[in-house]
C-alpha cells in the first residue's frame, strides 16, 4: 500500500478531470516540485510570482522519505488498533503524509503549530511520542503532551477553533518582539477544507491580516469534510480566499513533500521576518474514511479514489530516490523494517496504557480548584469505597 503503483507513470502528471467537480476543484494551478511519477521539477512559480525550489542533500531526501513511511505505518497501526477495539476512534492521515511531513519539517524549532485532530504527521515531526494522540482516541485522556514544551498545541476537534488560538499566539509573538529577524518565531495553523466555512476561521483571517500576525494558515484540502465534497464549501479554489482578506494565498501539491516543504518554509520565513500572514492550500486527498466510524462508499466513487492513488505521495518520492540513485533497495527495506518495528512498539505500549482512575475525572478542572468540586470528589470516593467494602 505504501508502495508506488507502477501504473502511475502511464497516467501522466495529472489524473483525468473529474466531471462531478465544480470550478473549485477544476485543474488546479498548483506549485509542484515532484511529479506523481517522481520527476523533479527544478522550480515552480506561485500565483504572486514567488519562485519555489528546494535544495536538499541526499541524506535529507532520504530523511523525508523515512518520515513519510513511518508516519503512514504508525497511522495504519492506529487504524488496526481501532479495528481491534483498542481505540474508540481513529482519524487517519492516509494520503496526506506529504502535506504534513513537508510542512512539519519546514517548521523551525522555535515555531509553534496548532493542529486539528488529524495532524499525526506534524506531531511526529515535532518530536512528540506518536503514542500521545492514541491516548485521546483510546479515551484515557484528552491530550497528553505539553503544547509549550513541544511547540505543538493540543489537538482541536471543534472545527476551526484553533485558527483563532494560532492567531492570538502569533499576535503574542509579535508583542514579544520575536519577529523581524531570521531567528524570529512563526506560527502555523492547520485546518481542513471544511473548516474554511466556519466563522472562526474567517475571523482568524481578519485578525491575522489586521495585526499582521506571523502566521501561516495551512489548509489541507483533502476534498472532503466527512461526506461533503469541496463544492459544498466553496465555488472557487480555497487559496484565493486569502486575497479578499489582504494576504497572499498559494495552492501547493499536497502530495508532493518537496513542494509542501518549500512553500511552507517560504511562508514561515516571511512571517518570522514580519511580512505577515499567508494561506497555503495543500491540495491533497483523504484516501481513507473520515474516521474509522465513517463509510465513504456511501458518498464517493471508487474511480475517484483510484485516480488519487496514482498521485500517492510516498510512491512518487520512492520513484524519485530510486531513479536518482539516492537510495537503494537496502535503504527501502531498512526503512520498512524500522516502520514495522516502531509500529509493533507502538501497539505494545498502547495495550499497556492504563485506564485512568475514576476520581481523576475531578482533576484539573480549575488551576485553583473549587471547594464544591472537592466535596463532590470526596462524596464520590466515599460512594465508590462503599462498593469496595461490599465486594470484599
Amino acid at each position, binding site marked *: 500500500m505504501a508502495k508506488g503503483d507502477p501504473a502511475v507513470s502511464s497516467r501522466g502528471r495529472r489524473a483525468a478531470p473529474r466531471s462531478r467537480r465544480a470550478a473549485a476543484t477544476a485543474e488546479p494551478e498548483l506549485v509542484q516540485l515532484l511529479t506523481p511519477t517522481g520527476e523533479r521539477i527544478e522550480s515552480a512559480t506561485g500565483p504572486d510570482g514567488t519562485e519555489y525550489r528546494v535544495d536538499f542533500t541526499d541524506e535529507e531526501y532520504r530523511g523525508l522519505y523515512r518520515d513519510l513511511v513511518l508516519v503512514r505505518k504508525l497511522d495504519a497501526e492506529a487504524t488496526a488498533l481501532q479495528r481491534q477495539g483498542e481505540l*474508540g*476512534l481513529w482519524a487517519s492521515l492516509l494520503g496526506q503524509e506529504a502535506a504534513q511531513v513537508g510542512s512539519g519539517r519546514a517548521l523551525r524549532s522555535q515555531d509553534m503549530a496548532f493542529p486539528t*485532530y488529524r495532524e499525526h504527521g506534524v506531531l511526529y515531526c515535532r518530536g512528540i511520542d506518536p503514542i500521545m494522540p492514541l491516548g*485521546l*482516541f*483510546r*479515551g*484515557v*485522556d*484528552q491530550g497528553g503532551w505539553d503544547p509549550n514544551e513541544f511547540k505543538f498545541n493540543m489537538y482541536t*476537534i*471543534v*472545527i476551526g477553533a484553533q485558527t483563532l488560538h494560532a492567531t492570538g499566539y502569533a499576535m503574542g509573538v509579535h508583542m514579544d518582539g520575536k519577529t523581524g529577524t531570521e531567528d524570529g518565531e512563526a506560527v502555523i495553523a492547520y485546518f481542513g477544507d*471544511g*473548516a474554511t*466555512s*466556519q*466563522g*472562526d476561521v474567517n475571523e482568524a483571517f481578519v485578525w491575522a491580516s489586521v495585526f499582521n500576525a506571523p502566521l501561516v494558515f495551512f489548509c489541507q484540502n483533502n476534498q472532503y*469534510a*466527512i*461526506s*461533503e465534497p469541496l463544492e*459544498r*464549501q466553496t465555488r472557487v479554489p480555497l487559496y484565493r480566499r486569502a486575497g479578499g482578506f489582504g494576504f497572499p494565498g498559494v495552492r501547493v501539491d499536497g502530495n508532493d513533500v518537496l513542494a509542501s516543504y518549500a512553500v511552507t518554509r517560504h511562508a514561515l520565513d516571511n512571517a518570522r521576518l514580519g511580512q505577515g500572514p499567508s494561506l497555503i492550500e495543500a491540495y491533497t486527498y483523504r484516501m481513507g474514511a473520515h474516521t474509522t*466510524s*465513517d*463509510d465513504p462508499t*456511501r*458518498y464517493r466513487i471508487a474511480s475517484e479514489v483510484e485516480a488519487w492513488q496514482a498521485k500517492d505521495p510516498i510512491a512518487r518520492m520512492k520513484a524519485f530516490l530510486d531513479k536518482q540513485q539516492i537510495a537503494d533497495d537496502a535503504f527501502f527495506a531498512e526503512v520498512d523494517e524500522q516502520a514495522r518495528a516502531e509500529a509493533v512498539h507502538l501497539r505494545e505500549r498502547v495495550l499497556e496504557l492504563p*485506564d*485512568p*482512575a*475514576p476520581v*481523576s*475525572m*475531578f482533576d484539573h*478542572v480549575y488551576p485553583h480548584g*473549587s471547594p*464544591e*468540586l472537592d466535596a*463532590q470528589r470526596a462524596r*464520590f470516593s466515599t*460512594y*465508590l469505597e462503599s*462498593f469496595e467494602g461490599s465486594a470484599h
Partner: protein
Amino acid sequence: MATETLTLGKALNTGLRRALENDPKVVIMGEDVGKLGGVFRITDGLQKDFGDQRVIDTPLAESGIIGTAVGLAIRGFRPICEIQFDGFVYPAYDQIVSQVAKMHYRSQGKVTIPMVIRIPYGGGIGAVEHHSESPEAYFAHTAGLKVVTCANPQDAYVMIQQAIASDDPIVFLEPKRRYWEKGPVDLDAPLSGAYPLHSARVVRPGTDATVLAYGPMVRTALDAATAAAEDGRELEVVDLRTLSPLDLTAVYESVRRTGRCVVVHEAPGNLGLGSEIAARVTEECFYSLESPVLRVTGFDTPYPASRVEEEYLPDLDRVLDAVDRTFGW
C-alpha cells in the same frame, strides 16, 4: 394497525419522512445529512427520495445552518436543522438564543420561526471529547425556546412530527446512546390524537418515591425501579419529555403521595434541570416532602475521557443510592 418494531433512530427517520411527505415546506438541513444520511443515519435515504432541495447538505458552519434556517423560516419554510453532535451547537448559540428564540417576541407575533433543531446528545458511547455533552440547561434557561427529548421509539416517532408541526422553535434532543434500542412503534396512529408534546408521562407507577428522568436516563431510572422493586420499594418513574416548559403537574401529584423525589440527568448538576425541578417541587410540595429533592447527575467537571464516563454518568446504583438517602434523611 401497523405496529412495527423499530430502533429509536429508525423511528426518528420514519417520523422525518412522514413530515417531508405531509408538508412541502418542511426541509432538512445540516452537515452530511444527504448521501451519508447523517453520521447516525437519522436522515438515511431522505435526500434520495425527496431531493437535495428538501434535504440540504450545508457548508460546515453551525451558525450558518441556524442563521440561514431563520431566513428560510421567514420565507415560509419549516426548517429542521441537524447539529451533528451536542458539542458542536455552540457556534450557533448566538443565532439560537438571540435570533431564533426572540423573533416571535420582538415582532409581537408577526414573525414565526417554526424551526426544529435536532441535537444528538449525551454520553455513554465511548466517544472523544465534545461528543457526549448534555447542553439542555443552556436552552431551557432561554425564554422563547422550547426543549423536548424522547426516550423510546414510539415517542421519537410521534414527538419529532409534533415538533415539526409546531410553530414554536423547538430544540429536539435525541438520546444518542439509545438510537439503537428497539421498541414497538404504531406508524398509523394520527398525530391529532397523540399524547401531547409538552406533557410529562408516568412510565411506571409506584408509591414509595418519585424518580424523574428524561432522554437517555429514563431507561436507567426504569432499571433502577425494577431493581428497587426486588427490594420491595415501588418507585414511580416519570419521563419528563418536555424540558421547557416543564410539565410538573403529575410530578407534584406524585410527590405529594410518595413524599420523596429524585431527579436524574447526565448534565452537570450545578444549574442543571434538577435544580429547577428541585426548587419547584419543594415550593409546591413543601409539606409533603420527607426529604429534600435529591439530584443524581453528571459531576461539575467537563465531560471526562471516555474510559471513565461510566463513572461520570448516573447509573442504576447511583439512582438507588439517592433513593436510599431520601429514606434515610
